């Protein structure tokens, strides 16, 4: 079937679709709330029909008719092959090394792929307190491929996060090894509304690998607190097809829990 590309999409929609492209049909993916859930379910409904999900609250390979509200929404156990416990998923699967892909997010992400979801300022009396790690630290520590979907704002991408909740490469290529992490060289991929950045395991730093359609390298640099190196010739993120958008909107998130209803305003 011929691909019919569409330009009628929102930034969030293309972020989810682009992130989904990093998921393979043979992967076991640990779900997170938000766009990660959208991306993972979209992958399963399109190019990665064999993918299976696990959820920290204990659900293993559920069949999710649409994106649930949270990872602890009762629907998360829908038609699972096993509704078990947090220990079974984070302990016997993630820590055991059975999970291929994890999603993370946070208030800050730095050039080493470190993530802060704990606080801004002194942890004892922070200026802003965030929720904390949840399952994120364990996923960051043990899973070989980490996907991060986030809006691209300068304050979200500092050179160094104020608090490492979930370690990326910490401070360089051997940062994880020095810290004692067994999974020393995970792949880290950041998908934003401006670009895609991927970790270079030899430098331990995020590199700019693709731009979102119509975005320039300059725009990325202007909105980033560090200067990601360019990896080769800059590619552009593939546009979504009409069929993809239809699935995303009508099947994955029909209740607009995560994606606002798309209206044809020109993107700004």
């Amino acid at each position: 079937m011929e691909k019919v590309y569409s330009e009628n999409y929102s930034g969030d929609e293309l972020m989810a679709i682009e992130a989904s492209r990093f998921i393979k049909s043979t992967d076991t993916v640990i779900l997170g709330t938000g766009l990660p859930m959208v991306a993972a379910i979209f992958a399963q409904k399109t190019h990665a029909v064999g993918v299976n999900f696990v959820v920290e609250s204990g659900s293993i390979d559920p069949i999710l008719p649409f994106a649930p509200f949270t990872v602890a929404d009762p629907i998360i156990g829908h038609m699972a092959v096993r509704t078990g416990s947090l220990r079974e998923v984070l302990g016997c699967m993630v820590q055991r090394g059975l999970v291929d892909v994890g999603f993370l997010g946070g208030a800050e992400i730095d050039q080493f792929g470190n993530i802060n979801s704990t606080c801004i300022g002194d942890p004892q009396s922070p200026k802003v307190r965030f929720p904390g790690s949840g399952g994120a630290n364990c996923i960051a520590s043990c899973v070989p491929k980490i996907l991060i979907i986030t809006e691209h704002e300068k304050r979200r991408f500092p050179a160094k996060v104020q608090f490492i909740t979930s370690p990326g490469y910490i401070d360089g290529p051997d940062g994880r090894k020095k810290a004692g992490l067994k999974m020393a060289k995970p792949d880290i991929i950041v998908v934003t509304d401006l670009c895609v950045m991927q970790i270079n395991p030899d430098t331990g730093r995020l590199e700019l690998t693709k731009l979102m359609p119509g975005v320039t390298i300059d725009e990325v640099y202007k909105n980033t607190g560090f200067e990601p190196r360019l990896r080769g010739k800059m590619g552009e993120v593939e546009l979504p097809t009409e069929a993809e958008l239809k699935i995303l909107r009508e099947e994955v998130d029909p209740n607009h829990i995560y994606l606002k209803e798309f209206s044809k305003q020109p993107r700004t």
Partner: protein
Amino acid sequence: MSKVSKRVKVMSAQEAVENLVFHGAIIGMGGQNVTRCAVALAHEIIKQGKRDLTLTGCNLSIHMDLMVGAGLVKKCEFGLGGLGRFGATFQFRRAIEERRMEAEDYDHLTMVCRFLAGEMGIPFIPVRGLMGSDILKYQAPSTKKKFEIINNPWNQGEKVLLVPAMEPDVTIVHVQKADEIGNVLIQGIACHEPELIRASKTTIVSCEEIVPTRFFRTNSDSTTVPYHYIDAVVEQRFGAYPAATTGYYSFDADHINYYQQRSRAGGEEYKKYLNEYVYGCETFDDVLEKCGGVKRLNHLHREMLRLM
């Protein structure tokens, strides 16, 4: 912990909290996000003003926020504090920001491993997380020793992180079914609760239904924890409201949003919420009545069944 375990343990929430919860206790928190939060039991603890509490669990959620908001909590030790898509747990957030409460951050895996060590009666357990994170760098003033790193005796040069067992004084959980002696069935996702309950010195369970012990004896492969770990059984339908209970009712997004508004506003607005929905209600049934009564509950029940 050797106790006379095989006896009738059914009592009111009021009796259970009076008997088992004490000032300064470490409270194990069942429930996560919007599922099976022990809200009815949390209300009762607030009404009885049990103070200087330490709350511990994985995803501390609305029931934690209520207790913090009521000024009863001196410390939380947890994986995450928040309400996901509903936003921050604002009482929690502010209490930390304003240094009125200590926060000891771990992550979900580490917390469940600490409960695992507790339920197994061992003093500590290795975990493959937290290394290289600032979670290890900072600890709350009152925490004595957050972790230890040793060399793996089976692989010299490999550093291994140890975390201490956690054995809460009193755990509060809400479940689908229990019998009068305390056998417990959790349906659907069980989160950290099997380990949490078995790790705790005492446990109060509230349940949607008290079923005959025969139910467990003829479904013994499914029992989540046997009665040996349970000290009080409180029958409270909709005891997790406004959170959900798998198979019984969905969460009430409207009320949670209403709570969040009040909580975000804080001050008098929040006090009014507590006065109206907690202190002002003699029983949890009164809370349910105030939140929309039969109509609302039936709606949430249908919402859940629609999903099954």
